[in-house]
């Protein structure tokens, strides 16, 4: 078992799994608690499309991914907020546009598309030093921001209207969370892949959501699940010779399934349907 640790590429992959697991899960807690799952999926696909544009035009795909994901967050946020269009409809349109652009850029790309396909599925086993430094920096920034603005974030993700009414800069915090999602997806794109990244954001946080009523505990449980998903997926990939990104996502989905099955919150399901009484 320990033989897995002797290879340099595996050491890098384990570190990438640790950092990606932490960042994706932390951001996932916000997305899940605010019920913004579809917005997150949309931002993930925007990052993917932006990275492909970078590959096609010959600039750093991470810059393309960052610009596209931030632009998607900037478009979707106000659309979801103002209610001028049904949010599901408008986000669905942006989502399909991003997917269409991704395939368009890929179709226009000359020659072999190995690098583009790597962005699809991710390649955690080929993560290099600069990728790790970038991922570590983003992890540090995200964790630092959460620690610094914990009370405002808690207020906004649980009671956004109330947060606004008591004088918390709720709109700035909300957009900060959307942009953090975009940045996290960008940082994890190379290792986890555009199609799979969102599962790593959603699944550990959704699993943690089933298990606790404390936000602090939810963050810690989600991070543990995220890192376990990455490491278990890597181990499965190494020992059974299966694609690492897919193994990570499937592991996280299994954890979610188990958390849901054993969730102490299942018994309160009826509250959602019950009439309000005194």
């Amino acid at each position, binding site marked *: 078992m320990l033989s897995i640790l002797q290879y340099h590429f595996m050491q890098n992959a384990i570190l990438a799994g640790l950092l990606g697991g932490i960042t994706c899960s932390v951001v996932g807690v916000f997305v899940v608690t605010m019920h913004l799952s579809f917005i997150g999926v949309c931002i993930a696909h925007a990052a993917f499309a932006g990275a492909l544009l970078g590959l096609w035009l010959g600039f750093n795909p991470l810059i393309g991914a960052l610009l596209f994901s931030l632009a998607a967050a900037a478009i979707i946020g106000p659309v979801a907020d103002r209610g001028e269009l049904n949010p599901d409809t408008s986000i669905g349109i942006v989502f399909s546009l991003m997917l269409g652009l991704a395939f368009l850029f890929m179709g226009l790309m000359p020659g072999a598309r190995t690098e583009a396909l790597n962005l699809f599925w991710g390649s955690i086993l080929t993560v290099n030093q600069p990728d790790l430094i970038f991922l570590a920096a983003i992890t540090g920034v995200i964790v630092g921001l959460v620690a610094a603005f914990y009370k*405002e974030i*808690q207020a906004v993700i649980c009671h956004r209207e109330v947060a606004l009414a008591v004088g918390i800069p709720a709109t700035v915090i909300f957009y900060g969370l959307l942009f953090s999602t975009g940045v996290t997806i960008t940082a994890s794109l190379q290792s986890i892949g555009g199609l799979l990244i969102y599962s790593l954001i959603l699944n550990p946080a959704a699993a943690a959501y089933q298990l606790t009523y404390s936000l602090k505990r939810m963050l810690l449980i989600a991070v543990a699940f995220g890192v376990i998903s990455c490491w278990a997926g890597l181990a499965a990939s190494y020992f059974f010779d299966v694609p690492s990104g897919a193994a990570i996502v499937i592991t996280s989905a299994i954890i979610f399934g188990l958390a849901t099955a054993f969730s102490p919150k299942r018994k*309160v399901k009826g509250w959602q349907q019950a009439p309000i009484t005194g």
Partner: protein
Amino acid sequence: MDNTVIEIQDAVVSYREDVALQGVSLEVRKGEFIGIIGPNGAGKTTLLTIVNGLGKLVHGQAWVLGSWLNGRNSNSLRKRIGYVAQVERIDPRLPINVRETVMVGCYGRLGLFRRPTRAQWERVDEVLEMVGIAHLSQRPIGHLSGGEYQRAAIARALVQQPEIFLLDEPTASIDQKAQREILSLIQLIHREYGMTTLFVTHDLRTLPSVCQRLILMKDGNIWQQGSPQSMLREEVLTQLFGAPVPVPTEIAS
């Protein structure tokens, strides 16, 4: 403007093509308890959002707690204004308990990068005791009944130490027993703290007896205003609501 804490001049608010307020002017003195009644769509809630700066004026201006409201100062003014809305349905799985929810009321005044102190947590516990839900302090907020949830919302507004208290149909969607308890609590708070209070309702049975002035709103305008005794007359209410409305005996007497 001595003793005046709110002055609204010719306020016009519109949501796309719908005009919610059509040139409303209002002056509120410090410590007044004002009831605002009217049919649905009369502009009652919009009037409250003008006071706390959440509503956007198309025309007119609002002077609140010593400042003319503009886009830049409304956030800091909201820290001094408590707001309790209708019971809302929230996710029962939400990872926040009653005590933490009430503490959110302090966060605006506390400011960024500062954590709540022990004294503030003690204040939260005192207020929870006062509103009668201290025994629920560790319960997830999504597990409260409608009446309990409103007590938590009132507690949250109180720990904010507001100078103005805005109550937007706080007894809607809860049963009559809980309604009476919430109304008693609101009256107790007004007697204890003497805060300037604006209380919106469309249900005349839920008007607190401490109400000193009644504003009748219709079609985005202040249609009439005066003492509860002068406003709560059958012919006035019938004209306001467009249908015969029984006069509530308790407050009118």
